[in-house]
């Protein structure tokens, strides 16, 4: 047979052709590929193709390749447009049931072989799938398919089956009205297939009848039902297409286009309307769309014959394993315009803020006023008690006073006030307060309050390690080694340990072994050398065993850097004029703190950036050197309040000791307003750091102004 393919189809096929070539000759050959594709485009027959190909490779392989190529071409053609051939139904059924595994790819060969086989296979049982016939296999081997792999065959078989199925459906649809019993037969056939459906390709590959012509005159109710369902399905597909990413097809007449003065689309009320823009799309997208359409139809059709069959238990979910291909996802229209809008808004807001702050600077709030403003927000203590609580302890309450008066009987008959009034008069009125002193409360007892451990004193006393001079160290080592040696000797003498073998060296070999060395010097020397190597090895092994592992080394370094801060954390507060733009300084500030295992915080505020670090004294010494010496702040020029360029600067605001850490690992935070910054520090309980740093900055700015 001759197959003529279009250039585009050949292009589609190119990759599979390449693969086929690779399979046949063991390598990919571009010239061969081009030859084959030209053959396909010109629609040569098999003979001609083999001729053409054999100019590149040997004839046997050429014929094999030609077979494959034709098969591929056939596949493509059949999947694109099913050839409408009249086939005997019975034969079809036979073919499908019996030869589902060993399917050939040539249509013509298929048919021929089918006819040959029919006689042989008619007696065979229906379910041949589990036990493939030997002769079929032999036949396959006999044909030129030996080079194909098993899964390739399987694939082909599936394709062919699909083809057959779909042809069958077409036929049925066409003949539906004439041959009702045919439908029943089909049903019967499917029934026969059902038990096998677990192992064979599922019926999902059935070609839909959508594109076939609907019957002109429905005869039976069954057919009617079928028709109705088809219509319904079509409608659903239409709906799906309309709702999806596809171009909506409005079935109403076109709305009038109204433009405003600036050429924007508006509706009748004058509101702006966002039109859906239909842009030309890529070929790939169109193809994807078409595929999707096809799949939708497939999935819609599949359930139909099964659903109405009486033998199907509907409670059992027999969902065909549909492999969902990942579809292209498109951005929602208007997404990027929205994003751009947001960015623009942000920029504008920033600009506005900048302007406001510039104006504030220009008007020039002086530093003194600023400070006054800062201090004004703390209210004075506003309540004065009648009597201080510590004084009230030694003053009499009205009851006590009454008791006392009764006891002393020195009441003033002219005084008609109550005791409460008297106490009041004494405490805050005109009477002398001394009258009201409760002398019983004053004793000559001396209190010894419970003494508390000072917070800086360690729980356990620390002892100074003993440091020895070099001489002492040497002596100690000598003595201990001698002791150890003596002990070893003792052990050997008592027979607790085997005596060590004599230590042999090249230099003492003759002396130690004498005649033996003379008899076989080579062997003896080898022995001695072996001993030397062994000694060295044990030495090195001992060293190795003593050496710290990588983790231990790291731990040691870490331990050396880390300091014990349980008895007080050293804190340092630095103020930098501007840390916004200095990327390298920022990096150093952060990384050094991290490397020194310090905790802290960096607050970025226009005109006053505060760096707070917490750690031990040694860590601080290093960090202080970084901040005040190593980073050359003054080389960076920053903008001051008036916009002029001034050198950057860093001051140590405070360093001291606190009981515990207030911050976690070092973090940066930008705070636009002074209040927010203070709040942030207040959250960590150290607002005084900010107060001090900020007022220092204000004073600094004040001193620089004149």
């Amino acid at each position, binding site marked *: 047979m001759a197959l003529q393919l279009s250039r585009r189809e050949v292009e589609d096929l190119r990759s599979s052709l390449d693969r086929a070539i690779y399979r046949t000759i063991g390598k990919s050959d571009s010239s061969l590929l081009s030859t084959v594709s030209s053959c396909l485009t010109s629609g040569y027959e098999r003979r001609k193709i083999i001729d053409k190909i054999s100019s590149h490779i040997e004839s046997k392989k050429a014929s094999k390749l030609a077979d494959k190529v034709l098969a591929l071409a056939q596949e493509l053609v059949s999947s694109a447009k099913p050839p409408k051939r009249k086939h005997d139904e019975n034969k079809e059924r036979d073919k499908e049931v019996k030869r589902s595994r060993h399917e050939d790819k040539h249509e013509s060969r298929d048919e021929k072989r089918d006819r040959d086989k029919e006689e042989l296979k008619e007696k065979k049982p229906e379910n041949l799938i589990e036990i493939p016939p030997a002769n079929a296999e032999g036949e396959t081997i006999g044909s030129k398919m030996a080079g194909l792999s098993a899964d390739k065959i399987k694939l082909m078989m599936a394709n062919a089956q699909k083809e057959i199925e779909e042809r069958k459906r077409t036929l049925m649809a066409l003949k539906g009205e004439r041959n009702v019993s045919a439908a029943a037969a089909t049903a019967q056939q499917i029934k026969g297939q059902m038990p096998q459906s677990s192992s064979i390709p599922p019926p999902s590959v059935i070609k839909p009848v959508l594109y076939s012509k609907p019957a002109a005159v429905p005869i039976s109710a069954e057919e009617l039902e079928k028709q109705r369902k088809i219509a319904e399905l079509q409608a659903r597909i239409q709906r799906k297409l309309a709702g999806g990413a596809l171009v909506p097809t409005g079935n109403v007449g076109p709305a009038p286009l109204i433009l405003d003065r600036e050429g924007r689309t508006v509706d009748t009320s004058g509101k702006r309307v966002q039109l859906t823009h239909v842009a030309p799309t890529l070929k790939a997208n169109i193809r994807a769309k078409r595929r999707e359409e096809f799949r939708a139809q497939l999935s819609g059709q599949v359930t139909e014959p099964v659903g109405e069959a009486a033998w199907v238990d509907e409670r059992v979910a027999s969902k065909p394993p549909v492999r969902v291909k990942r579809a292209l996802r498109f951005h929602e229209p208007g997404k990027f315009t929205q994003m751009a809008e947001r960015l623009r808004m942000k920029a504008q807001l920033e600009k506005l803020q900048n302007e406001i702050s510039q104006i504030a600077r220009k008007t020039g709030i002086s530093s*003194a006023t600023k*400070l*006054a403003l*800062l*201090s004004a927000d*703390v209210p*004075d*203590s*506003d309540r*004065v*008690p009648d*009597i*201080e*609580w*510590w*004084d009230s*302890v*030694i003053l009499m309450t009205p009851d006590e006073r009454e008791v006392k008066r009764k006891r002393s009987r020195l009441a003033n008959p002219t005084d008609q006030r109550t005791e409460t009034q008297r106490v009041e008069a004494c405490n*805050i009125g005109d009477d002398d307060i*001394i009258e009201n*002193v409760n*002398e019983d*409360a*004053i*004793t*000559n*007892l*001396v*209190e*010894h*309050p*419970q*003494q*508390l*451990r*000072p*917070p*800086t*004193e360690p729980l356990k006393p620390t002892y100074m390690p003993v440091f020895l001079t070099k001489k002492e160290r040497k002596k100690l080592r000598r003595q*201990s080694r001698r*002791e150890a040696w003596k*002990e070893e000797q*003792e*052990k050997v003498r*008592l027979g*607790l340990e085997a005596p060590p073998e004599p230590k042999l060296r090249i230099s003492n070999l003759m002396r130690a072994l004498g005649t033996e060395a003379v008899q076989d010097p080579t062997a003896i020397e080898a022995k001695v050398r072996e001993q030397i190597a062994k000694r060295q090895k044990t030495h090195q092994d001992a060293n190795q065993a003593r050496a710290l592992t990588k983790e231990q080394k790291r731990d040691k370094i870490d331990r050396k850097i880390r300091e014990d801060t349980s008895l*007080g954390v050293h804190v340092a*507060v630095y103020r930098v004029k501007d840390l916004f733009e200095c990327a390298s300084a920022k990096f150093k500030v952060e990384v050094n703190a991290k490397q020194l295992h310090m905790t802290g915080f960096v607050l970025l505020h226009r005109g006053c950036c505060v760096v707070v670090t917490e750690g031990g004294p040694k860590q601080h010494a290093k960090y202080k050197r970084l901040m005040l010496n190593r980073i050359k702040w003054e080389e960076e020029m920053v903008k001051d309040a008036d916009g002029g360029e001034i050198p950057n600067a860093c001051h140590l*605001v*405070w360093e*001291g*000791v*606190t*009981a515990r850490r207030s911050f976690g690992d070092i973090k940066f935070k930008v705070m636009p307003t002074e209040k927010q910054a203070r709040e942030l520090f207040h959250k960590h309980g150290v607002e*005084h*750091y900010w*107060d*001090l740093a900020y007022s*220092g900055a204000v*004073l600094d700015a004040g001193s620089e102004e004149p």
Partner: protein
Amino acid sequence: MSDDDDVILVKKPKQVYYGSLEEQEKARLAALAAAAKEGVEDSGGKELGDIQVSGEYMELEEEMSRDKKALLEEFERRRKARQLNVSTDDDEVRRSLRQLGEPVCLFGEGPAERRVRLRDLLSYLGEDAIHKKLEEEEARIERDRGREGTWYHEGPPQLKDARLFIARYSLPRAKRRLTKARDELQLAGSIRAAAKQESQRKATAMAIYCSQIGDTRPISFCRFSSDSQMLITSSWSGLVKVWSVPDCIPLQTLKGHTCNVSAATFHPRAVLPSHWRQKIEQEKEKKEDDSIEVMDTSDEISESCQMASCAYDGSVHLWNFKSDAPLASLSGHSPRRVSRVEFHPSGRFLATTVFDNSWRLWDLHTRTEVLHQEGHAKPVYSIAFQCDGSLAVTGGMDAFGRVWDLRTGRCVMFLEGHLGPVLGADWSPAGHQLATAAADHQAKVWDIRRRAPIYTIPSHTHLLSDVRYQKSNGHFLLTSSYDKTARLWSNPAWHPLRTLSGHDNKVMSADISFDNKYIATCSYDRTFKLWAPDLA
């Protein structure tokens, strides 16, 4: 003697004859024969079946290995004993033995043997036997201390009198102070704010007024007199000097201490005597014309105590303006250092803080110690009396402060929050706030009414040596530090107002004059400086 020699010198025979071996040989053979016979009998017995064959063997191997093990253990122990560190001090060895419950001394045992014995013992018991015992003991003591709590003892009878006096003195003052505060609160807020702003403005404008070399050694302390006309400085050379303010003319040199003087203060009612006033005037005139004429009109000089000073050796001297020698000394502190002396506002009592973890209250009328107050776990360093005279705050090297009620003798507030010795303390004139300065580079402000800390001022980059409130209203606070500066802080917001820098070395102390005109700082660089607002 010669005969004896002959007897002894018998000729040695050349051969030794042991006799014939025949007999022995015979006996041996007989024994062999007997044995053979017995053997036959034995074999006969075996056949009879009454022989007992034992399957037990003496396990030589096991026995030997056990011996070996014991030996090795012994070696191990000896090695351990060798590595033990045992004190070479015999006393300590004895103590350790006693702790372990062993006889301290065996008969005829010297220090070396004792040490070896202890070492052996420890090698059996383990090295940490002594430590464990000690720890147990300590834990027990700790427990006991915890259970102990607060306790009281009866003080001298004068104490009650003193307390009654203080109560009668302080209560009317407190009443007056509160009334005044209430009246002030009636004033408009703006007036108060204006007053505050004015004084803070002055503080902001503080500048150096004069500098004077005070001594040949560091100046440790300085205080103004209550009339702001005099300044007293104490030096490590052992001299205390009185200077006129603001001219800084030396008025008096008090010689009496033999070592570093730690503090010196004026009596609350000490004012510039008239003869010194004349002296100052003369000094001023002298600058103009060199007429040397000293007029001595010491007719109406008070004999009473006007100054007090204390030193490192524990001596506390009282002085007056009449002589350069001490009027009296209060003994009982030595050899401990007395770090601060402070007069009670009534002027009748003098408080001293001593390095034996206590502070004392002396009655100057009777010249007796009325109160010996303990409570700090470490030396007490600083002390300040509240303006009423009812409370006192002490700061100790244990990083805690304590507020004492002088009438009841109770510790009414415990100031916990510093992390270094509390080296300075002062009460606000309002009477309910106090500030402490500590070696953790911070100053803290506390409210007594609420019994809570109000604010922490991270003030300096070195330890704080002193803290003072502005005397009249407490509108600002002065801190001096070893970072060579003193600083002024606004009161309610605690913002820095001014940094007084000019000293070349640590600032050891600072004070604000009562009329708010001057600030004095004294330093390790042997100078003291006066600062005044520069409102030009």
